[in-house]
């Protein structure tokens, strides 16, 4: 029998409940009000008193209100029909809700029960299968959506029967499996999974090594992220976190993109809702929305559901990874999630860690990032979840707990810099502080030299050195004055500016410049590096400025032109003659 309880106390969205039976940590409970019921989650148990966080406003909740415990944790429904949906943090379908305003206690189903799917069997009778093995597939927006042995199944099962090719609804039986005790179990296209537990039904999780193209030069070229990799983007407000995230989610070469808008502005989600159904996926030509899942828990939506939203998003990402797909998950912003943890920890009167965050913040973040990864499935196929989170450091200070904890967990660090943003040098990723650990992976080196050619990583490291030397020179010029340093220092500085303006900076709002395929990135980088390797002759430093500005201008015009078009070649030729003017013999 389900455990019941009654409300004993209310502090904002933390409710204390006296219970009459067993409850478990993270179990779901509903507070029953006269006109509705409020979903909540157990977060602490003290004797008879169970503390639950309510995923809704607790306005009007009274001492004595009845509470019902459900016996399961926060779960999501997994099955065909998740793509292109807009969910809230608890996987309620936002489009199914009526009215302009969100109604408290309005819970809608995540999937469509009536839709017919074209099912194709992949397994056959007498096959031995285990959790996550593929039984069949349906076509979901052009992706092969695998129907799998439910993740909760333990041990080996024998397939008794699989449905024939045909049209089925998600709740129709598509297979019967027999377990080791000889009992038959029915399998449909839907299964449920608790969001806080990682889906681990894969054979092996090696170090990731394949470049995940984003079309953003300062990422792909300078600090690449890989399929199954992790990265984070910290930056003070106004440095372009969201523009960068949107650019990546539009352009990245992924099969599925899961976007968790976690405690951020509603209008940013609206931008995705509005644009993605119109924009084309540059890799397949289909609409972007077809490969996208949005989990929207905007900043004005209930705080407790904010924490749930990132887990919901990650679980959906893992589900699609198990189908052998390349999934990219973005969360904007993980700081809001940490703040939700802080609010609750505060109400629970726990001893606070730094800046009043819970002491286990670091562990929570690390566990979450660890759910990303490149995997070999049981059948030898590969799948990946690449995770990029943004962090909104309080006061722009990168020494605050969320940034520090994330730095320990994520392998790529894209530091957005206020001064770059102030100077409109977008994307404002600082080329010197930022890093990608994957550049040090021999697996990546091997992969990229096959893809682009050998010496690529050396070239990238050289870029970083030039940027660093450019910065040093610029500091010296600030101290000693323009004529206090040799002319060649100016040349050194301007070479770093060429890299900055042509490779690092990129116009996210220009149709051509916004997306640069890796081949074009390689072409431009080699072109720029040729200039950096050349010697130039100048009489005095004033000539240096003007000359390099012309070079930069031409290279930028090339960036704005279609690759290898007439226009592109015209600027390239003009550039060649400018270079001849001063190139040392």
């Amino acid at each position, binding site marked *: 029998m389900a455990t019941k309880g009654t409300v004993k*106390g*209310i502090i904002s969205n933390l409710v204390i409940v006296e219970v009459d039976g067993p409850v478990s940590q993270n179990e779901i409970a509903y507070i029953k009000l006269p006109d509705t019921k409020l979903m909540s989650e157990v977060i602490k148990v003290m004797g008879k008193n169970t503390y639950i966080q309510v995923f809704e406003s607790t306005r009007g909740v009274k001492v004595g209100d009845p509470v019902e415990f459900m016996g399961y944790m926060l779960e999501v429904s997994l099955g065909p029909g998740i793509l292109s949906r807009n969910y809230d943090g608890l996987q309620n379908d936002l489009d199914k809700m009526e009215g302009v305003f*969100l109604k408290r206690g309005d819970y809608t189903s995540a999937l469509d029960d009536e839709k017919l799917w074209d099912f194709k069997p992949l397994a056959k009778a007498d096959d031995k299968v285990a959790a996550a093995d593929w039984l069949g597939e349906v076509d979901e927006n052009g992706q092969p959506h695998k129907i799998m042995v439910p993740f909760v199944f333990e041990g080996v099962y024998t397939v008794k029967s699989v449905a024939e090719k045909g049209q089925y609804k998600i709740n129709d039986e598509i297979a019967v499996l027999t377990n080791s005790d000889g009992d038959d179990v029915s399998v449909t296209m839907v299964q449920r999974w608790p969001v806080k537990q990682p889906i681990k039904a894969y054979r092996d999780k090696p170090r990731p090594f394949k470049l995940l193209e984003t079309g953003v030069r300062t990422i792909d070229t300078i600090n690449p992220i890989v399929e199954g990799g992790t990265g984070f983007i910290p930056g003070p407000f106004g440095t372009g976190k969201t523009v960068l995230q949107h650019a990546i989610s539009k352009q990245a070469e992924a099969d599925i993109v899961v976007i968790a808008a976690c405690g951020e502005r509603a209008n940013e989600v609206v931008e995705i809702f509005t644009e993605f159904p119109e924009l084309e996926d540059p890799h397949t030509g289909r609409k972007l929305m077809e490969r996208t899942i949005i989990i929207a828990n905007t900043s004005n939506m209930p705080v407790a559901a904010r924490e749930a939203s990132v887990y919901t998003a990650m679980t959906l990402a893992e589900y699609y990874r198990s189908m052998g797909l390349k999934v990219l998950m973005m969360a904007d912003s993980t700081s809001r999630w940490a703040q939700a943890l802080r*609010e609750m920890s505060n109400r629970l009167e726990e001893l606070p860690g730094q800046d009043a965050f819970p002491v286990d913040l670091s562990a929570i973040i690390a566990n979450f990032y660890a759910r990303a990864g490149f995997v070999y499935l049981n059948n030898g196929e590969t799948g990946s979840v690449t995770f990029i989170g943004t962090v909104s450091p309080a006061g722009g200070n990168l020494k605050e707990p969320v940034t520090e904890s994330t730095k320990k967990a994520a392998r790529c660090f894209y530091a957005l810099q206020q001064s770059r943003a102030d100077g409109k040098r977008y994307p404002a990723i600082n080329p010197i502080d930022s890093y990608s650990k994957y550049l040090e992976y021999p697996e990546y080196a091997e992969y990229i030299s096959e893809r682009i050619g050998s010496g690529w990583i050396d070239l990238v490291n050289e870029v970083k050195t030039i940027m660093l030397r450019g910065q040093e020179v610029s500091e010296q010029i600030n101290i000693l004055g323009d004529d206090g340093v040799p002319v060649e220092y100016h040349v050194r500085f301007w070479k770093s500016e060429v890299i900055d303006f042509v490779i690092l900076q990129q116009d996210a709002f220009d149709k051509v410049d916004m997306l640069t395929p890796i081949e074009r990135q390689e072409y431009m980088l080699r072109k720029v590096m040729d200039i950096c390797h050349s010697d130039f002759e100048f009489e005095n430093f004033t000539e240096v400025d003007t000359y390099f500005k012309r070079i930069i201008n031409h290279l930028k*015009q090339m960036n704005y032109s279609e690759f290898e078009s007439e226009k592109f070649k015209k600027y390239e030729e003009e550039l060649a003659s400018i270079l001849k003017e001063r190139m040392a013999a």
Partner: protein
Amino acid sequence: MATKAFQKIYTKISKITKATCTLKAEGIGNDELAEIDGRLAQVVKIIGEEVTLQVFGGTEGIPTNAEVVFIGKAPTLKVSDQLAGRFFDAFGHPIDGGPEVEGEEREIGGPSVNPVRRKQPSELIATGIAGIDLNNTLVSGQKIPFFADPDQPYNQVMAMVALRAKADKIILGGMGLTNDDYLYFKNVFDNAGALDRIISFVNTTENPPVERLLVPDMALTAAEYFAVEKNESVLVLLTDMTLFADALSIVSNRMDQIPSKDSMPGSLYSDLAKIYEKAVQFPDGGSITIIAVTTLSGGDITHAIPDNTGYITEGQLFLRRDTDIGKVIVDPFRSLSRLKQLVIGKKTREDHPQVMNTAVRLFADAANAKTKLENGFDLTDYDERTLAYAKEYSNKLLAIDVNIGTDEMLDTGWELFVKHFSKEEVGIKQELVDKYWKN
């Protein structure tokens, strides 16, 4: 709400702090209102029979045997067309001597808009101020604060923006407004003949600080009425949100909550977001735009209040005095309108984005040149030119006393480029240079 035949009166208060009272009571709902000797209070915490109330008017003089009556509902506002042209206090009671407003009673701080029902904001709000229209274009449905030190004329600029923006209703939420500023707003709106479009909810410095907590929700409940029921474009002015946040910290402090950064409550982000996120473009044409003021201390935007605000709002307008020209300007480096991309170059001329960025980049070069100058170094010819440019740019475009159309702003931009720089130095897309570069 159930009407009660009789209301139970409690007379045993067990705890009193500067902002809260605690007593034993039964059957009380969270967020419910109560009156303590006629003073309005709201339930903020219930533990068993112990109910803690936040007293909006402050607890000065409340005796332990005060009469406490629970009203059985959260704070409400009566909404109807009668609101227009009226002035109210933080509780929604008239302070202009007029009659009480009749209308539908609505709980304030109501539910959020379903994000999938929102429309993408797309209507440009022209203010005539180039520091805003050119560099930080405003869009209806946006939420944006002025970041300003207390000595900046932010209330004046805000009143000017409000009157020039063609809104159907302007709702002023004044928190800790000095009486002088309150009268200033009243005067300006009256002189502009706009009083019938204005609704004000005002808490002045003469009123208790905790009352301020109600002001934004009151203002926004009225705004939602006009935007949803009447499909009107509503502009909400909230000044000063720093004082609102201070009131939040007073209450949380009295409730023994562990403070996070700058002694603000850990929930500051969510508390502010709940207010600012009421800015919205509704599907049927109505909209709520929020322009707020966040005062800074010594220009410090890393303080928890401006910092959290910046993460919530869609940009910020940063006012500062430019000593070179002796005028207040909208700082192009620290200011930002996140929604400008939705209108610039689309609702405005095609060259808008590039002119805007280039003008600011050159202004940044001037700032570098200035540093060099201050450090006693020789300036190059380019440096000299950027400095001359910066002065003119500041005067003709950034100063808040500018009042011109957007095309004129862009033309002025090109004029300044041509006057001070070469085409290469400007580095704008060739097609645009061919079209607009006029020697």
